[in-house]
């Protein structure tokens, strides 16, 4: 078995254990809710008979272990129950809102890597001099405010004072794009409407920056810290003695070994973004999971809450498996190893 496959199978094994744990945690959270879930589902005017009927339907009178069994069985069949808020299947609701959130988070993730890593490299190359100090203050600033504050500030500056970007939404109303994937940048291209694609991208930029800012700061700080450590290694000194260009030393010898620990953290930051997307979406009226999530929480819509958290946890696990595979692929020690690695 190739080493990458072996890591994939090991990661999948751990993920299954973690997912079981997550399902138990979500189930536990849903069961400590004060009050009778059946009563909450029906509202205060329901008769006792109706409540009893719903209790039987929801298996609420059976032992807690059996209830968990029913919950898992439903989830495995792809059945997350019905939302009390929208009166639709929770899976239908999530399928409608998740793509908008994912699109935002993926674009922000790319920004984090594409801006954060070069900033970190720049700071490390000039460590102890002014570019390093400037990057340090900038990155500390970006991680020092929640994404909704950045969203408000960016909106004020670049939508109102300098009207460069749209204030809210995902697409101008004048475009009518058939929904296939839910990712507007993909759907507009599938529809062959290039003007709409540009418009969708235009709507994406500001929210994505607001979401990415703290991640950019973290990625840059981490890359710098790892690279500065690498710069002390003898092989860098040798490369310098050979008279290689500093830019080449930075890219080929100092950055590469630092990339792997940085990637691990980037995976974790992606998780934070899935949560922070809630905040940015609220500011930019982005029709993603956030508005749905907050609405169902305020209405104590249990099925919808559990479904949303489960889907987000699943997304996070998938992202981390991808990051682990990427690391395995980038790390020659793993890529070329024939023995099992820990």
């Amino acid at each position: 078995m190739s080493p990458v496959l072996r890591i994939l199978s090991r990661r999948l094994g751990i993920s299954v254990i973690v997912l079981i744990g997550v399902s138990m945690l979500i189930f536990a959270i849903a069961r400590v809710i004060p009050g009778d879930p059946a009563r909450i589902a029906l509202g205060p005017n329901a008769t006792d008979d109706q409540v009893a009927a719903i209790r039987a339907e929801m298996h609420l009178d059976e032992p807690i272990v059996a209830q968990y069994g029913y919950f898992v069985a439903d989830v495995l069949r792809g059945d997350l129950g019905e939302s009390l808020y929208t009166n639709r299947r929770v899976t239908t609701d999530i399928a409608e809102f998740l793509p908008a959130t994912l699109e935002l988070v993926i674009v922000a993730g790319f920004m984090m890597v594409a801006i954060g890593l070069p900033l970190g490299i720049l700071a490390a190359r000039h460590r102890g001099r002014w570019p390093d100090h400037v990057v340090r203050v900038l990155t500390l600033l970006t991680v020092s405010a929640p994404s909704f504050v950045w969203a408000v500030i960016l909106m004020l500056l670049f939508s109102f004072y300098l009207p460069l970007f749209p204030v809210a939404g995902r697409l101008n109303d004048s475009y009518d794009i058939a929904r296939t994937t839910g990712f507007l940048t993909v759907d507009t291209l599938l529809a062959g409407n290039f003007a709409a694609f540009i418009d969708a991208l235009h709507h994406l930029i500001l929210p994505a920056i607001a979401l990415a800012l703290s991640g950019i700061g973290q990625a840059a700080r981490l890359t710098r810290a790892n690279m500065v450590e690498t710069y002390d290694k003898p092989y860098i000194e040798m490369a310098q003695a050979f008279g290689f260009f500093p830019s080449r030393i930075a890219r080929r010898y100092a950055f590469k070994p630092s990339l792997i620990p940085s990637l691990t953290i980037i995976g974790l930051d992606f998780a934070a973004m899935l949560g922070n997307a809630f905040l940015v979406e609220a500011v930019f009226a982005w029709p993603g999971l956030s508005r749905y999530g907050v609405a169902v929480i305020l209405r104590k819509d249990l099925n919808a809450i559990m479904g949303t958290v489960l889907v987000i946890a699943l997304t996070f696990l998938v992202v981390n498996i991808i990051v682990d595979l990427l690391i395995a692929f980038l790390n020659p020690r793993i890529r070329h190893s024939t023995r099992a690695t820990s």
Partner: protein
Amino acid sequence: MIRALRIISSNPLSLTGLVLVLLILAAALFAPLIAPFPTHNGSVVDFAFANRPPSTRNWMGTDLVGRDIFSRILYAYRISLGLGVVVLIIAAPVGTVVGLMAGYLGGWIEAVLMRLVDVFLSIPPLVLAIAVLGVLEPTLANAMIAVTVMWWPWYARLVYSIARSEREEGYVLAAEVIGASTAHITIREILPNCLPAIITKMTLDMGFVIIIASSLSFLGLGVQPPTPDLGSMVAEGARYLPDSWWMTVFPGLAILLAVFGFNLFGDGLREILGVDE
């Protein structure tokens, strides 16, 4: 202590952090004395001065019902810092105990505890807190519970990684050989080696708890009105952008300033205590 002060003050950034932290602590502690309108932390209305831009009377303007934003920010700092202290005082020891046990005892205890930590870490922190608040009533106390629930695993992981490497050190072996109890070895021998990392993390985390707490109240899941909170103030004002910009910009900057201070100071502490990033 004196050496620490000297190192801090030799670095202008860390010194700025220390000054910011002290200023914000003072602002929170003495809010009733400093605030120009100390009654404005509750449900007061003063429509004669509603929705005013910053002036000499109201340095940061007033909100929709005429309350002084500067005064409300000072009171909001009390809530944010208080919440941060409570959360960290519970989360750090809980996480530390879990991490020490998993790291030192090893075996099935390590496997079970660390998988449990993995479970908590595999739900985005904010989403976990939102889920906890989803089933509890959105109040300040419940917000503290929610944030604590999502916070302890990070300490468990930090302490675990240190304890695991210390387990193999000579001094631990020596303690084991002379028959020291598990409690003695973990608390008296291993814990002191984890403290610098824990203290640094707690300083940095003060800032991050403020961020998370304000995020929750921004979504309407934290402190409820009329109690002032930085997050809900931004949320309230965001509806009146761009005209009443002062309602969002000043509370937003207040968050930025506090968290920035704790970050700069924490960064300085890291250097003094020699903790790796």
